[in-house]
């Protein structure tokens, strides 16, 4: 019967696609858009594969989503930048142990003519000025590490965001790239990590206005998903990835990654 | 042979009305029987009921001497034949699919049938691009390939010109001579006179009259038959008695 034949053919076809890509080992790492879109993984992972033969498959999402993927057991390792959320992840029993790996910094980027006069080294003062001027500000609004940091800054600046926000505060619920695109289009202020900004091509009239504030320091941590929770997790290979990241080879690899001669990420794993 | 056909009390309903309102008829085993009558009399419905295309709500159709035999092998030719978007040969082969004929034999029977209707050289042409007359010949090729015991024709030449009509009529006669019983619905009384031995006059879902063609045409016994025939044959004079 023609139909059974067709069904069989398509099932085989689908199976051919579903067949494992290679016999080599692989792990799944849930990470953030900043590490992916800045090109760090493109630079780092080939070195890891050359050293260990392990293929790393990176699913790049916001920090909140990445941790959720880890909770569901759909990744072996999570690599994000929100210390509070990471520690909660471990405390809830989803992760083994949180290990710091590297940091980069946030910057506040805004319109070239700086209508709110926010430029300088003081993040909190800049936010107060932006709020006072009701200058357009784009927020990721996506439970990412960057979004969490942004909310902390508003709070530490003594501003009640819920009370003061109106049309000037635009929450787009998306990643860093779309947030920068939106800011570029609206000539708005936005908090971004330096790495994504350096790799971003559609800047329009935006430029860095606030940087160098110690408070803008953005720490990344890596966690192995707990096999007690999800027995299928590739513990051994995942642990080798973490070990490599904090080894001298991995740490130097991180430091060596540059865009336009500028270093994006600063390794700081405990020795 | 599973004839004669004995139809008793056949009722077919459609859209809330009785299209066939109690048909009682016995159809002989040989020759061509015509079915005539005004529009809406139920002629097409009668053919469809005999082919199993519509289900009766009452009455029965009996086959064979004792009325309990299996239905005869049948074929049906419509006024306009529906053809697939495929070759002529493929369309004729459709008629043999129900019989699970082995492929080689099927090809032979299709070729023979196409030759019989004069379409042998059109076998691989697109069936839909044939003329009306050629398409009707494809329908007859289908009928021929099935070698039916009963052939039902529903106004087969109504859309055709006189020359093509003549070709089709020759095919009908050939089939009759080959032993097929033919039921012919037609408005063309000249055709009926040429081809049929007996004629059934249907009116308002009932049999008004059934008899030899010559008799019914020259001396219709019922008012219904006379009224229908008068519309077609105004120059005939009728026996004033009755």
């Amino acid at each position, binding site marked *: 019967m*023609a*139909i059974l034949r*067709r*069904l069989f*053919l*398509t099932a085989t*076809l*689908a199976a051919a*696609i*579903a067949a494992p*890509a290679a016999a080599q080992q692989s792990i*799944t790492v849930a990470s953030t858009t900043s590490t*992916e*879109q800045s090109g760090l*993984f*493109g630079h780092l992972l080939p070195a890891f594969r050359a050293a260990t033969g392990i293929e790393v*498959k*990176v*699913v*790049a999402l916001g920090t909140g989503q990445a941790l959720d993927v880890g*909770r*569901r*057991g*759909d990744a072996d390792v999570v690599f994000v930048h929100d210390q509070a959320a990471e520690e909660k992840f471990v405390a809830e029993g989803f992760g083994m142990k949180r290990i710091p790996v590297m940091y980069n910094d946030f910057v506040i980027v805004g319109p070239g003519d700086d209508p709110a006069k926010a430029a300088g080294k003081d993040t909190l003062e800049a936010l107060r000025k932006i709020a006072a001027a009701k200058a357009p500000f784009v927020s990721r609004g996506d439970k990412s590490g960057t979004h969490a940091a942004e909310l902390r800054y508003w709070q530490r600046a003594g501003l009640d965001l819920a009370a003061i926000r109106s049309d000037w505060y635009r929450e787009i619920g*998306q*990643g*860093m*790239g*779309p947030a920068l*695109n939106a800011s*570029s289009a609206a000539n708005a202020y936005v908090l971004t990590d330096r790495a994504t900004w350096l*790799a*971003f*091509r*559609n*800047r329009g009239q935006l430029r860095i206005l606030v940087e160098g504030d110690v408070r803008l320091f953005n720490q990344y941590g890596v966690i192995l998903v707990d096999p007690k929770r*999800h027995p*299928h997790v590739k513990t051994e290979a995942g642990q080798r990835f973490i070990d490599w990241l904090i080894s001298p080879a991995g740490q130097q690899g991180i430091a060596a990654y540059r865009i336009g001669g500028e270093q994006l990420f600063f390794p700081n794993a405990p020795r | 042979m599973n004839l004669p056909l004995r139809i008793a009390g056949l009722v077919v309903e459609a859209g809330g009305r009785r299209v066939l309102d109690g048909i009682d008829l016995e159809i002989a085993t040989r020759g061509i029987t015509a079915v005539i009558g005004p529009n809406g009399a139920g002629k097409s419905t009668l053919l469809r009921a005999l*082919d199993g*295309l519509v289900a009766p709500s009452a009455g029965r159709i009996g086959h064979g001497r004792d009325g309990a035999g299996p239905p005869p092998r*049948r*074929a*049906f030719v*419509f006024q306009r034949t*529906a053809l*697939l*978007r*495929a*070759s002529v040969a*493929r369309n004729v082969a*459709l*008629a043999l*699919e*129900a*019989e699970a004929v082995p492929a080689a034999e099927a090809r032979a029977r299709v070729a023979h049938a196409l030759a019989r209707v004069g379409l042998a050289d059109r076998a*691989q*042409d*697109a069936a*839909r691009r044939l003329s009306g007359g050629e398409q009707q010949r494809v329908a007859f090729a*289908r009928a021929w390939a099935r070698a039916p015991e009963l052939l039902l024709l529903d106004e087969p030449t109504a859309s055709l010109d006189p020359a093509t009509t003549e070709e089709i009529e020759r095919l009908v006669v050939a089939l009759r001579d080959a032993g097929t019983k033919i039921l012919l619905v037609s408005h063309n009384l000249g055709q009926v006179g040429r081809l049929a031995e007996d004629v059934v006059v249907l009116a308002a879902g009932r049999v008004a009259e059934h008899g030899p063609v010559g008799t019914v045409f020259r001396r219709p016994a019922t008012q219904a038959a006379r009224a229908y025939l008068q519309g077609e044959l105004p120059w005939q004079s009728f026996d004033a008695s009755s």
Partner: protein
Amino acid sequence: MLATLSEAIALLSSLDPSVAGIAALSLRVSLAATAIGCAIGIPAGAFLAIARFPGRGAAIVALNALMGLPAVVVGLVIYLALSRSGPLGHLGLLFTPAAMVAAQAVLVTPLVAALSRQIVEDADAELGEQLRSLGLSAWRRVRALLLDVRFSLAVAVLAAFGRAIAEVGAVLVVGGNIAGHTRTMTTAISLETQKGDLALALALGIVLLGLVLVVNAAAAALRAHALRRHG
């Protein structure tokens, strides 16, 4: 806009070789999904066209409505099903091309079935009675009708393929846009747009359109060939 467009066209000649791999994945996933959609959708649609049963009208309405399934919703549901914490987690299919095929197949099957149903039903209105008078069983009648409408069905299949290869919501969620494994043309375009590299995104878009054109041209050539042979 013109500047970005001309930059995009200039990029076409110097595209990274990895684009070929991404394009190949897009084709494999969407072709497989379309094949599955046809294997299920055409018989289902044909059956629904000629069968008569209580609730048939409601089934047709539901099927037509499924054509409007949002891709991202389908992606989310399949993600939840294939997640390790979900009912089919043990299959380990999340973030693989197989998951993407499955999601697109779910998107595409109702489209094929709904269109097939209408196409076959229209043909049945024209041919059905005469096919029955040839003594054909329901199964043989469906085959004859499918033969008759094969060119209209081909367009329905192309519509299904178009929907599959153009969508980004489902494959992004279930595939994860993993570089070298589950990155398709549409997810790559989405990524480059997010990174602000609009010229590259547009260039990839042009490549994708080219791919779709090639597939449609191939289908047209096949049809012309079939027409010449079979009429």
